[in-house]
């Protein structure tokens, strides 16, 4: 008996050992394959009747509804593809792909992912993406890949490894009825907090970290200073000032700055209920959407922080081990089409800015885009465009997120 037990324990260790060894084997680097040599028709043909698993952020009720009620049925009807949406964002995506890589799995669980910034950067670091593939998409013709806001994802050239899906610009939201002089600079905010304590907070998600980056840019005296590759030197120079600024003032934050909400969804809700006076968004259409839903008061207003409105694009990528790459290509191509882009931009759906180049559109699409309900409450696309600034390198995001925790949250 005891012998048998020993054997089993021994076997277990052997088992673990073998798996560890398996991990050390080289990961497949054969990115280019027969897939790209096929014609688009062949790809569509192959995709027919398959299932595409799409991992995306599911925090936006309206956007979820748009996907469920428009994208999924349309894709099924037109291409015979069953689109399955599964939740996951940022590092969850990286983590999943990474674990699959460690397990040496030729076929992963996801076919396409919604990513940008640090997620793209990290996926590239572990060679987790399939590509380049954007040239293959027929609807790429509507997109200006030389536009810097599309060409670079957080200062990282996309090189065809992800296809743009939506453009976003970071804005603040406030209620004109409650906040008479909308603060913009950090100085303004400091004054405002002191006068109205408890009405401001920073969500612990990409919205909050983008706000922190906006302030970092403001401290650095403009985006020029932080343009280009990540610079540890510059970061070490400006970040401490940012933490000082927040630590000095956090006692005036919501719940005295002892805790921060996990996501901007919560912040928007508290803004709606009057618990907070400020919320944030990446979509210029967010305010119209919020008012329509009855979440925000009709006096809500958008504003841009002093540093400018950080502009970025979110993308669709294909994991290196996606089992159904053809299907993913077809779905991505559909999502890039003027039709899908216009539908998505509708404030009744997801909202936000489309990724196509308006000039490249056929007349009918141009008309349709013009016919979309106009924004009534937020800022116009043009007004924000004027204040648009580039995203900083992803490493800033990663560092800001980590240091906000160690330098602010964990400091009493």
């Amino acid at each position, binding site marked *: 008996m005891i012998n*048998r*037990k020993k054997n*089993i*324990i021994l076997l*277990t*260790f052997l*088992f*673990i050992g073998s*798996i*560890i060894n398996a*991990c050390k084997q080289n*990961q497949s680097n054969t990115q280019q394959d027969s897939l790209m040599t096929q014609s688009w028709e062949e790809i569509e043909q192959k995709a027919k009747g398959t299932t595409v698993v799409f991992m995306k952020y599911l925090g936006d009720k309206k956007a979820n509804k748009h996907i469920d009620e428009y994208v999924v049925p349309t894709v099924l009807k037109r291409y015979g593809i069953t689109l399955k949406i599964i939740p996951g964002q*940022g*590092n*969850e995506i*990286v*983590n999943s792909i*990474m674990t699959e*890589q*460690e397990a040496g799995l030729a076929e992963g669980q996801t076919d396409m992912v919604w990513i940008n910034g*640090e997620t793209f950067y*990290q996926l590239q*670091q*572990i060679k987790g993406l399939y590509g380049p593939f954007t040239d293959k998409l027929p609807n790429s013709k509507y997109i200006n890949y030389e536009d810097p806001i599309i060409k670079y994802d957080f200062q990282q050239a996309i090189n065809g490894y992800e296809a743009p899906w939506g453009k976003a610009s970071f804005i603040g939201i406030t209620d004109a009825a409650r906040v008479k002089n909308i603060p913009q600079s950090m100085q303004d905010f400091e004054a405002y907090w002191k006068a109205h304590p*408890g009405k401001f907070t920073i969500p*612990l998600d990409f919205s909050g970290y983008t706000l922190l980056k906006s302030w970092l840019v403001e401290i650095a005296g403009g985006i020029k200073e932080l343009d280009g590759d990540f610079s540890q030197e510059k970061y070490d120079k400006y970040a401490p000032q940012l933490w000082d600024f927040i630590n000095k003032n956090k006692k005036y934050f919501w*719940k005295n700055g*002892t*805790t*921060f*909400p*996990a996501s901007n969804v919560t912040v928007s809700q*508290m803004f709606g*209920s*009057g*618990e907070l006076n400020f919320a944030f968004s990446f979509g210029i259409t967010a305010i119209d959407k919020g008012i329509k839903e009855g979440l925000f008061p009709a006096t809500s207003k958008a504003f841009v922080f002093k540093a400018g409105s950080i502009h970025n694009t979110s993308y669709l990528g294909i994991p290196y081990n996606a089992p159904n790459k053809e299907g993913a290509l077809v779905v991505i191509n559909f999502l890039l089409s003027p039709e899908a882009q216009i539908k998505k931009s509708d404030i009744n759906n997801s909202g936000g800015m489309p990724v196509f180049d308006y000039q490249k559109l056929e007349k009918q699409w141009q008309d349709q885009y013009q016919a979309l309900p106009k924004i009534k409450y937020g800022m116009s696309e043009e007004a924000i465009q004027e204040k648009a600034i580039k995203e900083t390198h992803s490493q800033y*995001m*990663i560092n800001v*997120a*980590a240091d906000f*925790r*160690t330098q602010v*949250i*964990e400091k009493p």
Partner: protein
Amino acid sequence: MFKPLNKTLNFSILMLFTLLPLLAGLGYAIAYSFGLVGVLNKGFTLENWKILFSTSEVYISVLYTSWLAFASLSICIFISLAVVLAFPKKFKSGIFSYLVYMPLAFPSIVAAFFFFQFLSNAGILARLCHQLGIINQISDFPNLVNDSYHIGIISTQTFLSLPFFILLYASLYQAEKLEDYQKLAYALGASKKQTIFKISIPILLKRSLPSIIIYFIFKLGSYEVPLLLGKSSPETISVLAVRKLQKFNLLDIPQGYAIAVIYAFLVLLLLFIAFKKSKHQYEV
């Protein structure tokens, strides 16, 4: 099925579900934390453990998690003892014997959601206070969720474990023939107070100690409740480990596994104590 299964088969299935996942999971976590596996790891290193122990994060997390478990269990045991000693027969039959089971129908995530809706600044309790004119606006209401005193988490955990302890003490009350002991104590001239504090409570506590330790271990591992109702810092062990593994910095992942290892050994230690305390008792 009718015949007791073949011994080897029995043993294999048992190991498949107990020792194997344990060794495999723990082995993987240990290997990862020492840099032996993982795409971004480059071979054996102590670095992850060094980083982990150089910051106070993990110590605080262990203490905080233990404190939460301790606080919610103490309150829960206090209430259960009081209720059972006051109404020793209420939970054996009648409506309360059914009602007491209700919290058992709550998964932690639902309980957390409910307590959030109930206790938050714009929650039902706040609305009630507003209607009663106790507060004028949201900010007047005290912080009861995501709060510095962890009221939200502790109330939820207490609610979740209350039925277990009430039922445990109600059945121990009978099994240990507490009524007889109480009568004996009275006959020997003890006052009501003395009987409760010198006889009833010590007997119940002593008999329930292994269960308390096991329950303490469960509470150490709780995830959903602190995730929804906790503050951003400190975090409980599970929340901290999951954050390290799933949030922004990929280089934090080995630390996440290291935390998992620490937690596993903590559980092992506590289980060991629980087993020492219960020579002949295995029921939870």
